């Protein structure tokens, strides 16, 4: 099995608060993996460390053999990591199409002269970007709304737009932060299908999710985080039976439906 992403003994402290302690796990190439854990366990912090929004206090994060430490967020995106946010961060004053095209920033290969003179190269690249953006929107069943303002979308549709926008950066690893939070069961079932389709197209997916049915149904590998430590790793069956996990997480029914943001989210 090839490991696309590998975290080794990653810790993150905020002052005296140890949000993550010696977290180690790997994400397998081409698979759907998940990270679960009660509210405040440090899940979003893991995403913030991977995407370079925060530096880890200690430890190493490696993508396909190259360390991500010390790189800026945009450099990590260019290295092939894209993400969505728990509290949706689409560009609300742009259309859906523009949102997705922003994600292609890096992949539009024209220089300043081409742009100023509207040379054929520029026009071809812009047309290609629009076509590709429409295709990505159609993956998420949003192509019929391509020219609508993103702000007018329903909550569930905004989450799907965020995934389309993340895919536009041509990632090797797609990080989804609670993709079905706030969705109804029909929307969840649809998104499940769409995520399987995305994986089928060769993307590696790593998600944080509270919805156990969703995680257990999609992920082949799950890591469980509790109070900043990994307490269990394995396939859904192993996780379901793990006594520590049951105690920490599955035993408490109220967590399964919780949608309140993690406390460290904005940190």
């Amino acid at each position, binding site marked *: 099995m090839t490991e696309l992403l590998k975290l080794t003994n990653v810790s993150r402290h905020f002052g005296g608060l140890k949000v993550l302690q010696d977290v180690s796990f790997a994400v397998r190439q081409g698979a759907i993996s998940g990270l679960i854990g009660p509210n405040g366990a440090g899940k979003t912090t893991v995403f913030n460390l991977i*995407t370079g*929004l925060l530096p880890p206090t200690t430890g190493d994060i490696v993508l396909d053999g190259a360390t991500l430490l010390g790189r*800026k*967020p*945009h450099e990590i*995106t*260019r290295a092939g990591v*894209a*993400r969505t*946010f728990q509290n949706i*961060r*689409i*560009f*609300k*004053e*742009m259309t859906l199409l*523009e949102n997705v*095209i*922003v*994600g*292609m*920033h*890096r992949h*539009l290969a*024209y220089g300043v002269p081409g*742009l*100023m003179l*509207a040379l054929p190269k*520029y026009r071809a690249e*812009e047309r290609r970007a629009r076509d590709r953006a429409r295709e990505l929107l159609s993956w998420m069943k949003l192509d019929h709304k391509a020219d609508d303002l993103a702000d007018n979308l329903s909550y569930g549709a905004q989450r799907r737009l965020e995934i389309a*926008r993340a895919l*536009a*950066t041509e990632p090797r690893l797609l990080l989804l932060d609670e993709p079905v939070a706030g969705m109804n069961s029909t929307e969840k079932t649809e998104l499940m299908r769409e995520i399987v389709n995305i994986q089928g197209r060769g993307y590696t997916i790593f998600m944080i999710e509270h919805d156990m049915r969703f995680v257990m149904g999609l992920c082949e590998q799950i890591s469980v985080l509790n109070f900043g430590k990994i307490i269990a790793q394995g396939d859904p069956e192993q996780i379901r039976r793990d006594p520590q996990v049951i105690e920490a997480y599955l035993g408490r029914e109220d967590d399964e439906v919780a949608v309140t943001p993690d406390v460290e989210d904005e940190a």
Partner: protein
Amino acid sequence: MLESLDNFWSIYSNLVLSLGTASLLALSIYLTLSCGMLAMANAAFMGIGAYTSSILTMTYGWPFPAAIVAGMAAPAVVAFVIGKPTLRLSGVYLAMATLAFGEVVRLCIIRAESLTGGALGLNGIPQLTQWWHVLLAVVAVLFVLARLRRSRIGRAFEAIKEDETAAGLMGIDVNGHKMLAFALGAAIAGLAGVLNAHLTFFIGPQEFGFDRGVEILTMTILGGINSLFGPVLGGIIVTLLPELLRSFKDYRAVANGLILVLIVLFLPKGLWNPAWMRRVLGLERKGVTP
């Protein structure tokens, strides 16, 4: 007919041309605003451009085109140097840092008396600016900015304005694009300074102080940054207003401040806002038909 046009031109040519330089100034701050940055250094950049080019043409006898290039390059280089530490600031902190920079520039101009004429200013700048220079400058700047808006760079500016973090995670070099907007805006402000200095014979340090900075901001906030017409419209209104209300000329700064407050309160997207204009026109039509 032609004679009256000649008359009009001989009286008002300076005013018409200053509409052009005002538009350039409004467009220069539009660039940073469209990137979500409230940078207040454009009056200082205008001053750097004006002094650099005037000293070059007056003292060193440089040809005008070379002075224009130098008058644009100097503020852009200064913008690059001060942008490195300041552009990571956001919101009101960036405004404060850039305002302070503006004051530093003004005081430097006053202190460097042998070079700049100090508080008395520079007198007898050759009148090299032709009407078509101004027109060409406005058209060229509008063209460049219009092209930028329709490209990945313009989209990156807008993304940064809406959400810096999300923009960075789209693979956009946030600091690089902010620097580009800041330095390009400085070059455009410098261009306005060059053209203005070689139009009016005289420049003094007071022209490039806090009042001018607020005036430039007022133009662009008044016009709005939804389109390139907004800043041009704002520049024209803010320049014409004191001419139309001659008797209130002493209150120019008050009027600018008042406009700024009113626009921010009632028309946060500025005057050039198609949706709002349609609504107003729609209301008027209703009023006419019984």
